[in-house]
């Protein structure tokens, strides 16, 4: 058992790992398992007795079975397209170097933070019968939904894979090239295997985002193309049929767990360790035109809805004007809002700061535990179950969690229904998987022998972590923080359930404005969306700048 000898880890006793794991687990238990459990309890215990008849009834319905398959197909297809398009974009934006790159990165990030309802309107403005792309006949089709989902998620792939790519050393690739391997062979045999964990991570996150997105699907697909998520929303929020909703929540959970298991298996078979060292960023070569072409196409695709949005924000009564932006300092026509848009932006920023701190703190704890590969098989199982547990919030309906908060966190000492702390907490829960997925690979990559060496030289375990781990982790940490802040700025699903009317976030305000029946508020909503996107992109750009030349990798 030589591995056991090598893995002697005097500094990380099991009790410490368990203790560290306990903190995020408690958080997950109170703010996720409890509300979801509460909703399932209401659904399955009618009049105090367990009633599982809902399963046979619900699953017997052809419409529901169709929705389950649609969910899987839709999310699978959208994730695949996002990856295929996102990887070349990641290469161009993070491995090459050319003027205007920072602007392109900003454009690619934007969709991620735009409120779904705004994107829905922007997409439909393009695709509707009278729109500039109306001739394609895509309005209300399945293709439109897939386009919408891809629009949102390319940025997730480009960013996670890009950050990983940036950290890959180019030595192995260069040696292969100098030995005569064609560029495509180099990519297939050296780069791709090294990027595989990052691509799989991104794909799984994107799949979960797609499987649980309901705003886009409802707006672009209507009733014809629902998903499990939209059905849970309809059954809970409109029909109050908690029995059916509970069954669907369980089905959703099963789909998500199955996906996580598949991904976990795929990840485990990858043994290639990313070669570290300096990565070189160079100017694009002429032979790279296919990659550059795909990237240009993607940027155009992302720009079209954004341009239609910006266009509408600059128009009022058929004339070009900045009036919509000037109105952001007001509460809108007919007292549409209780606060001005600028005040809401302030609230959003404060909440984002809080959510980011919570997500990063918990994320570091989770990543710390996950990255300490344990020596026993049972230990590893526990760790991967622990890792999966924090992916769950992405895969479970925001509606279920939202209503769950409402019916479970309603007794002292946890009467939080009307409390403003729930907003950053809910957002942190959504951001947590992204944080964990960004930090863990960097932590895993550190050779434990470095820590042992430090300790042999007399450092305490804590000291060893500070001198060995921190320098490697801090840049991915920043990237994760930027991601968490963006998630928080753009989050609408859970926030709309929890935000207080007198303290709304910017997406909530935008939703309110856009739902009001007059042109003035509509224009304001468009302008506010542009502001939201710009502020968030600027925030992320700032964080990117801090992490320039990041050495952390997946």
């Amino acid at each position: 058992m030589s591995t056991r000898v090598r893995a002697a880890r005097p500094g990380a006793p099991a009790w410490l790992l368990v203790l560290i794991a306990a903190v995020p687990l408690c958080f997950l238990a109170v703010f996720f398992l409890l509300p979801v459990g509460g909703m399932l309890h209401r659904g399955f215990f009618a009049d105090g007795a367990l009633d599982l008849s809902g399963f046979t009834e619900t699953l017997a319905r052809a419409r529901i079975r169709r929705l389950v398959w649609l969910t899987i197909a839709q999310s699978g297809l959208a994730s695949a397209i996002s990856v295929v398009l996102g990887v070349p974009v990641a290469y161009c934006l993070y491995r090459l170097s050319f003027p205007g790159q920072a602007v392109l990165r900003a454009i690619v990030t934007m969709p991620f933070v735009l409120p779904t309802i705004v994107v829905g309107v922007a997409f439909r403005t393009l695709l509707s019968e009278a729109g500039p792309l109306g001739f394609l006949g895509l309005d209300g089709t399945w293709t439109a939904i897939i386009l919408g989902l891809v629009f949102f998620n390319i940025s997730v792939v480009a960013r996670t894979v890009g950050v990983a790519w940036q950290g890959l050393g180019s030595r192995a690739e260069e040696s292969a090239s100098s030995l005569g391997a064609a560029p495509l062979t180099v990519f297939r045999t050296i780069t791709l295997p090294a990027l595989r964990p990052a691509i799989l991570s991104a794909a799984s996150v994107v799949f979960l985002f797609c499987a649980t997105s309901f705003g886009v699907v409802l707006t672009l697909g209507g009733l014809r193309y629902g998903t499990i998520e939209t059905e849970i929303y309809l059954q809970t929020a409109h029909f109050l049929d908690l029995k059916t909703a509970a069954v669907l929540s369980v089905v959703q959970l099963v789909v998500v767990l199955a996906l996580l298991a598949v991904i976990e298996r795929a990840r485990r078979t990858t043994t290639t360790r990313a070669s570290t060292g300096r990565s070189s960023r160079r100017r694009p070569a002429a032979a790279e035109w296919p990659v550059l072409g795909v990237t240009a196409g993607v940027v155009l695709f992302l720009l079209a809805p954004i341009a239609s949005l910006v266009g509408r924000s600059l128009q009022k009564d058929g004339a070009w004007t900045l009036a919509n932006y000037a109105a952001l300092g007001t509460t809108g026509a007919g007292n549409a809002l209780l606060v001005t848009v600028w005040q809401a932006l302030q609230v959003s920023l404060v909440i984002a700061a809080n959510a980011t701190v919570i997500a990063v703190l918990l994320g570091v704890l989770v990543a710390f535990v996950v990255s300490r590969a344990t020596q026993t098989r049972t230990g590893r199982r526990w760790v991967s179950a622990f890792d999966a547990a924090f992916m769950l919030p992405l895969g479970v309906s925001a509606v279920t969690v939202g209503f769950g908060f409402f019916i479970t966190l309603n007794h002292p000492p946890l009467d939080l229904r009307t409390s403003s702390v729930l907003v950053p907490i809910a957002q942190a829960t959504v951001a947590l998987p992204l944080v964990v997925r960004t930090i863990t690979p960097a932590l895993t990559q550190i050779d434990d022998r470095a820590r042992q060496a430090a300790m042999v030289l007399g450092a305490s375990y804590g000291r060893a972590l500070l001198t060995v781990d921190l320098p490697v982790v801090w840049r991915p940490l920043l990237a994760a923080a930027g991601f968490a802040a963006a998630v928080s700025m753009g989050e609408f699903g859970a926030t709309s359930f929890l935000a207080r009317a007198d303290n709304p976030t910017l997406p909530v305000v935008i939703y309110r404005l856009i739902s009001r029946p007059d042109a003035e508020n509509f224009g304001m909503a468009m302008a506010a969306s542009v502001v939201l996107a710009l502020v968030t992109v600027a925030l992320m750009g700032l964080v990117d700048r801090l992490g320039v030349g990041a050495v952390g990798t997946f």
Partner: protein
Amino acid sequence: MSKHSAALAAITITAAVTLSACGVGGGGSSDAKTVTVMTHDSWAAPAELIKKFEKDSGYTVKIQTAGDAGELTNKLILSKDNPSADVVFGIDNTLGIRAVDAGVFRPYSSAKATDQAKSLALPGADDDLTAIDYGDVCLNVDNGWFASHGLAAPTSLDDLIKPEYRDLLVTPSAVTSSPGTAFFLATVAKYGENGWQGYWTKLRDNGVKITSGWTDAYSVDFSGGEGKGSRPIVVSYASSPPFTIPKGGGEPTTSAVLSTCFRQIEYAGVVKGTDNTKGAEAFIDFISEPAFQKSIPDNMYMYPASGAALPADWAKYAPLATDPLTVDPSTIAAKRDGWLKEWADVTTG
């Protein structure tokens, strides 16, 4: 992460959660000086009026929005055993009986309600609810479009299934939008419980476009809206036309088809189980009084239930239907969900 910083993080998070639980938390119902109002997303009121109420009554008003009218009703029913609000505003006549049957209200009849408000009371709800405002959901047509296409605008629901009006109508979904539900109920009133299915099949065959919400229908697809869409007939409100008066005055560019209207009435009620009954009642009195009633059209785009005076352009360009289509509220309560599920099947084909 050292042992100490891990412990520190643990303490920080625990402390944050505990503090928030004790300090910031707590529903409005535990505080006798605060009136917590649960309402829908469309709530809007002038800040001065609320301030004046707070000053006169000594209560602090806390607004809690809970989604659209449907979500509001469901949240109210779900939190029945431990309500989070003292008073609710925005339950309408399509969902009222469901909430009343669930026993979430404490009876109260406001002395401030006018005779007209009383005439709008929800049949079968006894004294549980007070009518605050109302409005009509009707077809709206783009006058300019019809003039330039040499076609007469439709004047009835029957017209919509005629070939000359093919591909001209857009409506929000009956399942996910409250004006959508109202329009659906108008067709139930007109064609009967067993006749609407046939009508909607014909609408579908005649190219009706269904969007998920009102915003989409009006501001993307409707030719008379901001988005300059392709469809000149939309399901909207009787109060929509004044919003299409061109800058600088003149006639609205759209009008409502008054024979197709379904009347929506919005109510307020005291939440059963509140320990601030007095505050809840004071709030219902406040929103029934003339000052607040007069603010309703400009803020919530509905008509005051009390009969208070309307803004000038409303009085002129936003008449209500004289004989709106209606469905008995108890029938709606009993059959609504089944109908909507059937509607989804009929329209998606």
